[in-house]
């Protein structure tokens, strides 16, 4: 694998680890995103807030940010 290609893949990988971003200040920990994500991308942290743990599975289906009542989720890929 050429070096440049490696860098590309690495970049993609890094991006993939956070396909959606949750703005914690606006989030009210209602679990809508956690329960409705078809790929089960989210887990909850100790305080009950969602965190992206299986970002690789995300298909950018838009369900989580269309249903977040607080507009706290944005996609970082699309």
């Amino acid at each position: 694998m050429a070096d440049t290609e490696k860098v590309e893949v690495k970049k993609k990988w890094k991006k993939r680890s956070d396909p959606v971003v949750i703005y914690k200040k606006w989030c009210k920990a209602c679990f809508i995103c956690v329960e409705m994500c078809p790929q089960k991308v989210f887990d909850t942290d100790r305080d009950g807030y969602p965190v992206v743990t299986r970002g690789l599975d995300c298909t950018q289906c838009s369900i989580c940010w269309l249903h977040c009542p607080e507009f706290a989720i944005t996609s970082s890929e699309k």
Partner: protein
Amino acid sequence: MVEQVSNVTHKYLRPKKTFPNVWCPGCGIGIAMGALIRAIDSLNFNKDDVSVVSGIGCTARIPVYLDFNTLHTTHGRAIAFATGVKLANPKLHVIVISGDGDLLAIGGNHFIHAARRNIDITCILVNNYIYGMTGGQYSPTTPFAKNASTAPYGMIEQSFDPSDLAKSSGATYVARGTVYHASQLSRLISQAISHNGFSFVEVISNCHTQYGRLNREGSAVKMIQWQKEYAVPASAAARMTREELEGKFVTGKLHEVFRPEYVSEYQKIIDKFNEEEEENRQLQES
């Protein structure tokens, strides 16, 4: 496209308002507000050409956060104010968004008469089956036998079907959506805004804090997923019998007809009057 989806809502929020919003965690009103924003954005309107009017209640807090021309009016009078706005400036796209108690109980008469007149207003009713903000009293849409804080032994009155009421009052576009089907909802809302005449969209939402707690319906997520099970698309409903549809609700576009619209008819009278005036003036001059 999806990039717009994720950033679109933020473009239309008032920058100086404090967030998070006032609603309970998981309240569907926030989802309905997102759908409304995306609907307006898909139509490419200028912010100054849109006017959003509401009454009092949880849902009526929506315009507070929206960066359009907004009016937060007295209880039940949203449509009355909106009628005035539309007649004073017919170029505006006037949208009324309020709850079931506000639009159907206190503002019931404004509602049916605005529908009868067929004035070009878009009315969005967020139906969560109860008065949320004031403490869980039953509203005209609380289903029979369900509990409310003023009906601790169960509701003994029959309830309104808001979409049927709008249709029979003369609304020329009627649709029903749910907050679960959020992208369909914004499609329906943008259709309703584009329709010339009184258009009505009923949004089935969840009030887990009042209705859900009193009726043991569970968390916000459970109530939103309940909507998926009980919603029947209009195309499928046409093939179902009355018994099969019992207890369910039909979603999608329910009714659309075209009738003369009130503001343009009113404009015709003004034009006619101006013409006569002009003729009289010319007669006097000659």
